[in-house]
């Protein structure tokens, strides 16, 4: 058979359902059937929650060696599933795990993952960002063989489940312990994670545009004047200019304040996923084409070293 297979990730339900929505777009465009699969326990809520959504078929990929994720285990298991089902398209959520094993899996079929896709259109053609969001690119797949796609978090809207009939098939791949070359440890959290930014109503966030650690007080003054928390994008924390627990983005915290004021942040997708739920976004950046302006409600194009002190004064004046 030939269809669209959506591979979901238990524990990453939201983005998995978005992948399912993307799979549905692809199935509608191509007229192919839609099926879903995930590794893990058939009682996991990923299957229970999926049960109300078409497709009506799910493959539970089960094996004791898949209990802890390893790239080797997952590549072997899904290679066998794909060879059995022979789908034309395989759609994944673009998670860290997918980034870890799907490039290998695709290479086994002589294929390349079209990763981090934001839209699927007729053709089918696939859109994704280039240059950290400054450009959009359209790709297509050519030649025989399955097409591997992963979709970006938040790019496809998933529908709420409704009651429906659902069939689960069990798929037990052949894997032996000596084929698993890596030994993963249990996930842990950095102990210093003490600042809870998720509930902060006002946030001033600083990025690469600040240029130097000694300029941080400039944005701190603005944050203080507003009564806001000060956060940062990844490069600032990588440089040690701000503590790691104040990092916003896919590898840091996810925030949704009333006001998110981005200072000198270009808006790479890894940052945007951590803050795009904000009610009102303000961007101050010298580059009018910075992707942050795509999601900003208000923008000031200019030199932050002039704009930020002026804004601090204006905020202070307004509060008097």
């Amino acid at each position, binding site marked *: 058979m030939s269809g669209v297979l959506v591979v979901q990730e238990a524990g990453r339900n939201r983005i998995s359902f978005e992948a399912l929505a993307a799979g549905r777009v692809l199935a509608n465009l191509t007229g192919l059937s839609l099926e879903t699969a995930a590794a893990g326990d058939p009682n996991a809520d990923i299957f229970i929650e999926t049960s109300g959504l078409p497709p009506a078929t799910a493959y539970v990929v089960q094996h004791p060696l898949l209990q802890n994720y390893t*790239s*080797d285990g997952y590549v072997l298991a899904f290679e066998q599933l794909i060879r059995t089902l022979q789908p034309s398209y395989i759609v994944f959520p673009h*998670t860290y795990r997918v*980034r*870890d*094993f799907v*490039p*290998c899996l695709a*290479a086994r079929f002589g294929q*390349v*993952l079209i*990763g981090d896709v934001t839209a699927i259109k007729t053709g089918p053609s696939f859109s994704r960002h*280039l*240059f950290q*969001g400054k*450009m*959009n*690119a*359209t*790709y297509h*797949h*050519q*030649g025989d063989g399955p097409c591997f796609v992963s979709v970006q978090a938040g790019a496809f809207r998933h529908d709420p489940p409704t009651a429906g009939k659902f069939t689960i098939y069990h798929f037990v791949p052949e894997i032996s312990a000596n084929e698993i*070359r*890596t*030994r*993963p*440890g249990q*996930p842990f*959290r950095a102990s210093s994670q003490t600042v809870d930014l998720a509930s902060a109503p*006002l946030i001033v966030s600083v990025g690469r545009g600040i240029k130097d650690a000694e300029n941080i007080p400039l944005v701190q003054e603005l944050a203080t004047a*507003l009564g806001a928390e000060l956060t940062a994008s*990844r490069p600032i924390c*990588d440089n040690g200019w701000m503590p790691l627990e104040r990092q916003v983005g*896919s*590898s*840091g*915290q996810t925030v949704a304040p009333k006001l998110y004021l981005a200072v000198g942040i270009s808006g790479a997708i890894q940052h945007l996923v951590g803050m795009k739920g904000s*009610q*009102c*976004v303000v961007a101050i950046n010298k*580059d*009018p*084409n910075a*992707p942050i*302006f*795509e*999601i*900003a*409600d*208000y*923008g*000031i*194009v200019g030199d932050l070293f002039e*704009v930020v002190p*002026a*804004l601090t004064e*204006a*905020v202070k004046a*307004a509060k008097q």
Partner: protein
Amino acid sequence: MKIIVAIKQVPESDAQVRIDAAGKWIEEADLQFALNESDAYALEEALQLTEKHGGEVIVVSAGPERVGTTIREALAKGADRGLQIVCDDLGTRDALGVARLLAAAIKPENPDLILTGLQSEDLGLGQTGVIVAELLGLPHATLILHVEMTETGLTVKRELEEGWFQTIDLPMPAVLTIQSGGNKLRYATLMGIKRAKTKEVRILTAEELGVDSTPVIVLERVELPQKQKCTQILGGTAKEAAAALVEKLKFEARVL
């Protein structure tokens, strides 16, 4: 220990990129290029490992001739020698095509460890290192912040989502893709820059590596992204814009 670091030359992160006339790539003529950021962290990790345990660091990079300057930069920071795969069609090769070039250049070196950044700042595919591992039949780990040698191989610290981490044990040889921020990056010293001039950079071509370049993924066109929101740009002097913004936040958005 022999460590290979695969690096990429990309447009500088604050470069204002413009789409080329054909709408298929960007205008490269007046762009400044730099070492891809996470590749810089991969190089730093390799240099620190060989400082601690001894050995050799070899950088490999594919692309047009200008890539040579980025290889020299890596040599100036302390890498011992370079392999430059000269090809002018890097843009039309897909990740598998590029990984095949790198794997073909790396294989005869028989390294103990291959490091690269987790993704490039231009294409952002984040796949090349993982595919190189697959092509060479080696185990891999991605998004690595810290590498430690053990008696049996390596213990690495891997970043997971939302502030979580895990450690992974794996045997050598192996491929690791390095996340930014695990180490502090060094600058090239004057002495380093001087020494780099005498270090060996071997030139290889795609033809002599015998690698097929037919892509399965084709980049059709490049466009400016469409705005998701209608952004109100506040103009005037810094002072005027700041005053207008406070007004808007107070009375229009009502968030102050």
